[in-house]
């Protein structure tokens, strides 16, 4: 599996650390217990395309928003996580 880092170009996935679902970008208000429980623990866990957070730890250290097929491992989009977060606001 290879991931195209927007800064560094296409690299082997071993250069990246996997965090989990990109829903972690949408942190709810800490006072809303139900929303926070869902944020921390509940996952859709789809078999097809999933948006995920990876960090290019052995490269530029940027957090990336990666859209990947969970069954075929095909990667269809890689963006900087901060851009995705800014666009969502």
């Amino acid at each position, binding site marked *: 599996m290879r991931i195209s880092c927007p800064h560094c170009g296409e690299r082997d996935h071993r250069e990246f650390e996997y965090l989990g679902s990109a829903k972690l970008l949408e942190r709810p208000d800490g006072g809303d217990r139900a929303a926070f429980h869902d944020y921390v623990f509940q996952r*859709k866990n789809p078999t097809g395309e999933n948006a*995920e957070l990876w960090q290019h730890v052995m490269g530029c250290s940027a957090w990336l928003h990666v859209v990947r097929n969970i069954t075929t491992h095909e990667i269809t989009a890689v963006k900087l996580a901060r851009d995705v977060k800014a666009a969502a606001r």
Partner: protein
Amino acid sequence: MHYSALQILKNGLTGNKGWKPVWRDPEPKKSYDIVIIGGGGHGLATAYYLAKTHGIQNIAVLEKGYLGGGNVGRNTTIVRANYLLDGNLEFYSHSLKLWENLEQELNYNAMLSQRGCLLLAHNDGQFDGLARRGNANLATGDDAVLMSADDVRAFTPYLNFDDARFPIRGGLLQRTGGTARHDAVAWGYARGADMRGVDLIQNCEVTGFRIEGGKIKGVETSRGYIGAGKVGMSVAGRTSQVAQMAGLRLPIESHVLQAFVTEGVKPVIDTVISFGMGHFYISQSDKGGLVFGGDIDGYNSYSQRGNLPMVEHVAEAGMALMPMIGKSRMLRSWGGIMDMSMDGSPIIDKTPIEGLFLNGGWCYGGFKAVPAAGAAFAHLMATGEKATWATKFNLNRFETGHVIDDEGTGARPNQH
């Protein structure tokens, strides 16, 4: 038919014509009191205990493929009870007790071999950690022996003790741990369930649930609608997908775990050994193959095959621990899909839908749990109450803060 030495002798002398198919291949009925989804170790054990312990007659197990064709037929067969935290401690302790009597219980040779299970420590911190773990096991009534480096050297002299980077500081041995014949466990429970009238229905995929007024009514399947008073999900690896058909979202991610086996060699490893510096564990099958595995690949996957970097990592860990295995050739490797829960511990509980029950989130510890999980799930489905040995595997524990995080890594399924 009751299996015995006399039967073997009798059939051996009469051309082996007396053996009958071990279970029926029934057509699904219109409805059942209880339907179990998933004909793996857990589902079959659940059906067995529902029929045997709770006397329920009208049960079906629905299996998408063939019985025992999922993770129960593709694991590293290790049985042990050396966990650390309450919840896991009493559960796996009970499971090991059921394992010890399993063959008599099922009249089926599951080839349980209590050859011991050794965890290694490579520094003082790890050694102290093992001492704490061993004390927890002893306090639960299980076996634990804290071994010095010399003890370990006497027990397993072929390890690489003087490795400059990972010298062996000591170990924790559980003499009652070991391995079992994984397929036979599924077959034994299947036979026992079938003998007690459970319908084992293969090639029957559940495609949806029928839920009315918040209560389960039955399941839609590839072989038609089947009504059910209660439904239990026992579908490791696919729990999220099946639960989603009932509108549930779970604290589970699916990850791939690889395992490996070498060509058969003469007896060389007479126990189960876990390396402490990198996830690597190894035993030798009765056929002679070295069976070993490592960590999950580290990112969500439903592919049922692993990636090469983990193959390399596992091979490196094996070579660091016991360089002698470098001469054996790898025969096969495979990947299975694991329900990785958010705290690394399983869920055996009711769901918000009345009559729908969940057994899942076993991470890669599901095999050793088969007897106790089946018995606990059966107890829950039959009585509505938690079994005494499985009171803490609650679905809402993530909400209430009662997580059971044996590895202590937080809500990171790829770290458990």
